[in-house]
């Protein structure tokens, strides 16, 4: 199996599509054309790779966790996206989109953010490229991720707290889409995950492919030409997971996405349409979208990117969930055994590895999507 382009209609199997108001269809088509062109232009790809390397600090290393491995009886390798500039994998996608937006002649970026990592990354790219930037963030998240709010402002971005709906990530996406409809002419919507209308799920995956490509080569080096038995990552919208899965899709490796128990779209949802895509969605019998509830703002999302729904439907990837308590324990576990404080989002993947008995004796590659600095305040309250 390979990860190819979706159909011309933007479908991965039955999933995906372009379910946005007619007003935005032309903008999605324009973006699809621009991305298709840029992604086959060596000068664009060179520039993208140069910025990832000279500015964002790629490649990120793979770290073998000796003490954690001994503790769990599982050989654990971490793909260190936490070491990227701005502290998470989000920067890969943002640099790609910001360069593309410039190329398209757009002068402004608008973005949604949950944990604030995507917002910080977008604000960073805007500062780097001299673009204006506005970030929508649910009022609940503004509160629990105050540090990232300040960071975005420091970087020169405008942050707006979203007061509608559940006041978390899904509502921030709604608000960013509303903003975009009124501003498409000069504004690019820098969407933060492999979700939304076509071409976003495909384009964002392509910008994160670098995670999987690097990890494949690095694992091969560490494992003497071999591959890990299992590749795992946390799943909110699913961008860091798709990025790392893309490097191993054609191998025997088992691919496992870890969702929060309170926001398990694949595990607890049914297909539905919101935010421009047909995908698994947590919703009630009438089709009203349910609020996700997770300790981590970045995974507090009731939907999931359509390619994950596809990978689940064909059985190529499996999706599991972990509870907030398991995540808190994993957050401490990795901090103490390896001296790495993970983002609460990334701690979900660690939590599953720590819990899952069938992993004993196996080699597991975990995408450590981000660092935990942003979560330290929240954890101080929880751990006392």
């Amino acid at each position, binding site marked *: 199996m390979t990860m190819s382009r979706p159909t011309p*209609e933007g479908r991965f199997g039955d999933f995906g*599509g*372009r*379910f*946005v*108001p*007619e*007003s*935005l*269809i*032309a*903008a999605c088509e324009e973006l699809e054309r621009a991305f298709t062109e840029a992604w086959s232009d060596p000068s664009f790809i060179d520039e993208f790779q140069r910025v990832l390397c000279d500015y964002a600090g790629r490649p990120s290393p793979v770290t073998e966790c000796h003490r954690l491995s001994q503790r769990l009886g599982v050989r654990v390798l971490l793909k260190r996206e936490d070491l990227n500039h701005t502290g998470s994998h989000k920067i890969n996608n943002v640099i790609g989109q910001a360069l593309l937006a410039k190329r398209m002649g757009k002068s402004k970026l608008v973005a949604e953010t949950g944990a604030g990592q995507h917002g910080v990354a977008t604000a960073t790219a805007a500062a780097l490229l001299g673009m204006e930037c506005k970030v929508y963030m649910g009022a609940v998240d503004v509160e629990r991720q105050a540090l990232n709010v300040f960071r975005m402002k420091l970087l020169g971005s405008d942050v707006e707290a979203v007061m*509608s*709906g559940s006041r978390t990530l*899904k*509502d921030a996406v*709604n608000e960013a*889409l*509303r903003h975009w*409809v*009124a501003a*498409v*002419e000069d504004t690019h919507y820098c969407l933060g995950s492999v979700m939304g209308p076509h071409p976003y799920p495909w384009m964002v995956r392509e910008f994160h492919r670098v995670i999987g490509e690097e990890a494949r080569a690095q694992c091969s080096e560490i494992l003497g030409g071999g591959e890990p038995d299992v590749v795992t990552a946390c799943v909110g919208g699913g961008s860091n997971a798709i990025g790392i899965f893309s490097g191993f899709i054609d191998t025997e490796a088992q691919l496992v996405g870890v969702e929060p128990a309170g926001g398990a779209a694949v595990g607890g949802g*049914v*297909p*539905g*349409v*919101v*935010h*421009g895509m*047909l995908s698994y*969605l947590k*919703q009630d*019998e*009438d*089709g*009203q*979208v349910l609020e996700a509830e997770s300790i981590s703002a970045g995974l507090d999302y009731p939907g999931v990117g359509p390619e994950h729904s596809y990978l689940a439907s064909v059985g190529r990837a499996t999706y599991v969930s972990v509870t907030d308590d398991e995540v808190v324990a994993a957050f401490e576990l990795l901090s103490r055994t390896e001296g790495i404080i993970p983002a609460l989002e990334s701690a979900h993947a660690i939590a599953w590895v720590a819990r899952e008995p069938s992993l004993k004796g196996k080699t597991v590659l975990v995408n450590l999507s981000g660092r935990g600095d942003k979560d330290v305040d929240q954890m101080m309250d929880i751990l006392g």
Partner: protein
Amino acid sequence: MTVSLEASLMSAKGAGRKLLVPYITGGMDQWLDAIRAAADAGADAVEIGIPFSDPVMDGPVIQEASWQSLQHGSTPQSVVAEAADLDVGIPLAVMTYYNLAYRAGHERFAANLYRAGISGCILPDLPYVESGPWRTAAEAAGVEPVLLAAPTTPEHRLPDLCAASRGFVYAVGVMGVTGVRSELAASAVEIAARCKRVTDKATLVGVGISNPEQAAEVVQVADGVVVGSSIVRRLLDGDGPEGVAALVSQYRRAIDG
């Protein structure tokens, strides 16, 4: 008996009448009486909003109304069931978001509307390019799927879009979401003119018509208007069905010239 939206609007248009379609969010305080009042005050059809958790095409006013309605415990079934008892003599259409139709199943959702005497259905997040399966199911069930044309709809897609739309063509007046705006955008007149060049169906401009003066201006070109936020604002402000009747009368007089 369900009145055909398209036949009814076409016949009024044919008689030289400009068309007025007020929007009211189902399930908000006094909404049924507000619809009756709007009908009495000269509406040609009424659009009933079925509240959705994530109304991405709506601005603050209709978001607030949707929220109020959901807080009252409204469901798609309750709104449709209550609308079935309206006997206002003009066609009704619902406006909601696609997931409610997708979740229920196209056939079941459409059949439910038809049984309640609702003629048309507007799904603003279901663009023409994704609308095929829904249109087939809706028309088979006797429900007219109204499509939206936007200022950014390319010329090559507009004729097919207008041909596929039933009931009327909903011309989106501004690039933006529903809400009250102080000025009529040039794009409103432009999109109406573009639609009228490619279709004989009634072309109504909605989104961005905030007062009777703007309505009067746009019907110089368009066949009519859909007015939402300014009407819903009256209900949110507690002006009740009387307030709605007064505003609908003003719109009526303005577009009758």
